[in-house]
């Protein structure tokens, strides 16, 4: 059986790649993708901890399923926002979205 640490290394990598992308990318779609990476890293952790530490129970798995559903909904909303922003401003560069700044 594969050791738990390998899964955790993968998820940690995904998490920090996601954070890195979130901070440095200017394209809103790229930021959204980075966010997805962060969320999926967390979900991997849920599944892994459940599988290895509490093999008798299923709560971690359920959380993972919830997380997937929420991620899907959130992506839909985010893309809708991005499309609207593009229609209004003509760009999806976050540096240019500062119309609401006081």
């Amino acid at each position: 059986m594969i050791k738990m640490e390998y899964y955790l290394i993968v998820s940690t990598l995904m998490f920090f790649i996601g954070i890195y992308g979130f901070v440095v990318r200017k394209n809103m779609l790229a930021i959204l993708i980075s966010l997805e990476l962060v969320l999926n890293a967390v979900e991997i952790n849920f599944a892994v901890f459940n599988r290895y530490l509490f093999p008798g129970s299923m709560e971690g798995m359920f959380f993972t399923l919830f997380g997937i559903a929420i991620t899907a909904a959130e992506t839909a909303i985010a893309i809708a926002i991005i499309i609207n922003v593009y229609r209004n401003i003509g760009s999806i560069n976050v540096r240019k979205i500062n119309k609401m700044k006081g």
Partner: protein
Amino acid sequence: MEYSLLILVTPFVLFLLLGLTGHKMKHHVAGFIGTLGMGLAAVLSYVVAFQYFFVIGKTGGIFKELIPMSFEWLRFTDKLHIELGILLDPISVMMLVVITTVSLMVHLYSLGYMHGEKGFQRYYAFLSLFSFSMLGLVVATNIFQMYIFWELVGVSSYSLIGFYYQKPSAVAASKKAFIVTRFADLGFLVGILILSFYTGTFDFGALTANNAELAVTSMQGLSFMGLSIGAWAMALIFMGGAGKSAMFPLHIWLPDAMEGPTPVSALIHAATMVVAGVFLVARLFPVYLFAAPEVLTLIAYIGTFTALFAAIIAVTQTDIKRVLAFSTISQIAYMMVSLGVSGYGGHDGVGYMASMFHLFTHAFFKALLFLGAGSVIHAVHSNEMKDMGRLHKYMPVSSITFFIACLAIAGIPPFSGFFSKDEILAAALHHDKLIFFVMLFVAGLTAFYMFRLYFNIFWGKEKEYDNHHKPHESPALMTVPLIILAIFSVFTGLIPFPEFITADRMSFAAHIEWGTVAIPSIVVALTGIVIAFVLYAKGSEKPAQIAKSLGGFYAATVNKFYLDEVWMFITKSVIFKLISEPIKWFDRHVIDGAMNGLAWTTQKVSDSIKGLQSGQVQLYVWAYVVGSLVIAALVLFF
């Protein structure tokens, strides 16, 4: 006796009614509503007085205290709580009668006197407020309730003195009256706090019960700067009374208060509010007598000095209302002296009885004098004696009623002032010969200056009156109150006061001491009248010559012994310069400086960090991630 509450409620409701909706009413409507309400209160007080004195008040030869109504207003501790209620005992019932009667007369008189004045409804609203507060003051069940109404009386007096608020002198006078009495009330409040701290109660009944046992025992053996605590407390309380009752050196506001409308002077500055101090001392009389006898002696001497001092000033004043104001100060001082020389039980307590008696009679004849003066001012449009003369021809009713009041205040039998003043002199004679002789002299001065006033107004030389504006008798609305008050001034002296109002609440038989007191006082009064007649009845040149020969002393009395200037010096040069200015500097520089420094620092700091809030979510996340990593590292490695 629960209906006695209505005596208080009626003027209060009138105040609200006239104050809030008066400006929409016609003048005479507002006036008649006010007068009718006051009439109702007066009738109720007569009923209360009759019930109390003749039906239910007396049990076993003693007039008991009745508390028909009382509720708890504030509770500090189980022992210390403040009640609001109604206390009926001989002096409060007497005051109810005095206040409502004089107030009714003034309401009636003002219908004529204030006719057509701007702010007529406001005037009536404040008259009602004043009546309410004064009535509340006299029926107070505890010293704190008295203090509340005491201040209310001060406020309504302030607004009535300043009724002609476009006149700078009226504004200044009202401020002066308010500030001087407030200053005195500071002492009153401190006195109340000391007294209630040691006795644990505000209640008059508890304080005065069993010869003020509570006050005596609870403050035994405590002293501060050589005087007992009890004496301090009572002296401070007296300070409040001295401020309201215009005792030297806090009398300076009363002459200026004459800037108000004349009926107001009659009601507030002659008959009711200014005797509040006397009433306060009388109310706490057992405490003064048993816990602080030295203060009572002090009161007697302050009173004696004030009486003499005010009477001397009254002789030289030329504004007729100011003469009356100083006369009021002098007469109130009589009452104070009388309390100061009084003992407690039986015939020893004649001073207490005489003080209340004089308060009662003085209220009527002094109100009459003021209203009479108002009638004259109404006719001549001037306050100065030099603009008057031979007015008897034009204003017979005012003249005759004024004459009656002068006889009453001079102490000529059988007018009321004779009886009360005689009792005061008798009490003084048995206590202290010096006080007696000074007061006897003051009685002579009183007769002299009152008749100087009378002769100068109604006799003397005829002045050149404008033909279009010949003086004429005032309308019936003004003369009827004069006549009623004149009747009171003649007959109230015949009331057997020792039957009803005594220090220990038991009746005793007082008699007039013809040989030692009455005859000398009548002789002295007649002498004063004769001198006034010789000097002023024909308008001779002699008074001016005498004034010239007196020189500096005359100038000093005309200027009221420069006391206003002395107070001005004390406040301006001493208090303002030496105390207020340094405190002001401290406030401006240290306190304001600290606050401004704090604000300046805050602004600078926020200026320097406001760039961080850029609105760039990515930056925030960056800070967040780095921050949490740092914290995680700290937790892990330290």
